[in-house]
């Protein structure tokens, strides 16, 4: 049994501990899990990227930059997946932000039904990308071709999944379906922080709705646009689930994105963990560079504001 006095004694002593020890005591639980499950694997990934480690063989050796050379020079599938991902990112950053901004403006301009539209447009974002991908697989393979069997509309009855250029469109469609609502909500929040008097006085000065949007609202929500662009950059470089569910990277490997290429290299095809780690490190470098630019741009904005 521990007496009350002893307990008081212990607590008092704890109060007297140095600030650093107390800081460590409060942060240790989070730190332990974070270091073991994020930082150690992150460092491990970089280390393994210089080795020929594979998942089957317990021994491995250091091979220098050989993996990186192989990935960037010889591995045509990886290079193709990089280019495919870049193209995807380009389309996503523009279209996702454009659609989200336009829809946010339209929703906010409505007097009635704001909540209904916001809810419906945001709903797809709540659905897991893997489920969304499967639902759209049904749409592309069963529903759309059936709507237009004779090909009168020209484009609905496509081999959406089997033809690489159409499956690119299919992947984009599903990504936008899932992702536009997310950015829209962020833009709506930004629009709501624009002072109403500013818009009113522009109106009184005779500015039409487009003029108000372009000259008053847009400059005010530019910080949100920066956030939106970087969010979609970050998310689309890491795209995985949609492609996994929709095309599995096919036909062949025509729609393979970087994340899927890494996944297949490590867990499905060759178990070359060291080699896949080199590709993963390259992906990390890209995301890292984007984030650094993002932080710099945001800092600059803050100084100006």
């Amino acid at each position: 049994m521990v007496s009350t006095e002893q307990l008081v004694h212990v607590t008092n002593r704890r109060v007297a501990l140095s600030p650093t020890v107390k800081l460590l005591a409060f942060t240790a639980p989070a730190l332990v899990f974070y270091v073991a499950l994020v930082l150690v694997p992150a460092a491990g990934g970089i280390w393994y990227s210089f080795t020929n480690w594979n998942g089957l063989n317990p021994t491995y050796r250091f091979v220098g930059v050989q993996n990186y050379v192989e990935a960037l020079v010889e591995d045509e599938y990886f290079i193709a997946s990089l280019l495919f991902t870049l193209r995807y990112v380009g389309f996503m950053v523009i279209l996702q932000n454009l659609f989200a901004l336009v829809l946010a403006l339209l929703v906010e301009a409505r007097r009635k039904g704001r909540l209904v539209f916001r809810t419906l447009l945001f709903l797809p974002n709540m659905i897991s990308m893997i489920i969304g991908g499967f639902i759209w697989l049904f749409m592309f393979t069963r529903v759309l071709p059936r709507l237009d069997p004779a090909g009168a509309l020209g484009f609905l009855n496509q081999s959406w999944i089997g033809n690489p250029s159409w499956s690119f469109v299919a992947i984009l469609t599903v990504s936008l379906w899932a992702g536009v609502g997310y950015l829209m909500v962020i833009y709506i929040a930004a629009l709501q922080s624009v002072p109403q008097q500013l818009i009113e006085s522009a109106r009184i000065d005779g500015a039409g709705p487009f003029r108000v949007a372009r000259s008053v609202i847009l400059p005010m929500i530019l910080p949100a646009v920066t956030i939106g662009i970087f969010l979609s950059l970050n998310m689309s470089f890491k795209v995985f689930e949609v492609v996994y569910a929709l095309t599995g990277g096919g036909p062949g490997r025509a729609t393979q994105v970087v994340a899927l290429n890494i996944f297949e290299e490590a867990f499905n095809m060759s178990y070359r963990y060291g080699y896949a780690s080199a590709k993963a490190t390259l992906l990390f470098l890209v995301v890292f560079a984007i984030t650094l630019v993002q932080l710099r741009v945001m800092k600059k904005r803050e100084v100006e504001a």
Partner: protein
Amino acid sequence: MTGVRISVRESLADLTSLAVLMLAAFIAIVPVLMALLNSLKTDGEIITNILALPQVPRFGNYLIAFERTRFLRSVWNTLVVLLVGLAGIVLFASMAGYKLSRTRGAASGIIFGLFVMSMLIPFHSIMIPLTRVSRTLRLQGSTVGLGIIYVGLGVPLAIFLYHGFVKSVPRELDEAAVIDGCAELRYFATIVFPLLAPVTVTIIVLNTLWMWNDFLLPLLMITDMTRYTVLLSTNMLFGRYGNHEWSAILATLILAMLPVVTLFLALQKYVMRGIVDGAIKG
């Protein structure tokens, strides 16, 4: 005259905007509605007429989906992951975020910097070594282990959000507690933590959505079918190149999205706020 012309122009613009919004909303929900509609038909009906209402609603498809995905079992597994993950993230991140926000000096800055660093690391860059680490730590293969991995991955953003919010809790409270000789952990648990409730809600919402909808991590960590999460069970039904038995599959997809969609519709306000806070401050 001008007044009339302006109002005509305005109502035309209004109609256009309404039309655009309705089209967008239609595209947003039509795939879900088509899935719902066809999940109540036989496979034959799906082939003959995809748009028609089912002759008789086949709720049996849902029974098949229930059995094939061991739905209740999968939901239970997912809940275990969620509870372990949420408990760890909220508990550890609130403690750390509070203390980091209150402590000045190099040590505090370095530790906070370590956590912020995680936002630069994409999951795909750590997933390969993570499978090895989790095997070593015996976290692989169990739902509790998966929840624990989510704690490690989830604390940084939560710490970041708590760190910012703690600044709004007056420091005078701290000082009063010190004078009273209150043990700091108890002071934190009884006084500070309740005041952090708004951001705790945000963190719970964000992490629930993340863990429920995440597919890749469970895919890497869980191999035993009796421990599958809802998404893994759903994915299992897809023999990619086989003949798709769409009626049962669609029922499964609807079932799998139902919990999170219901939650969203019920707690919409918090979800939207959580999304915005997480995106802007994260």
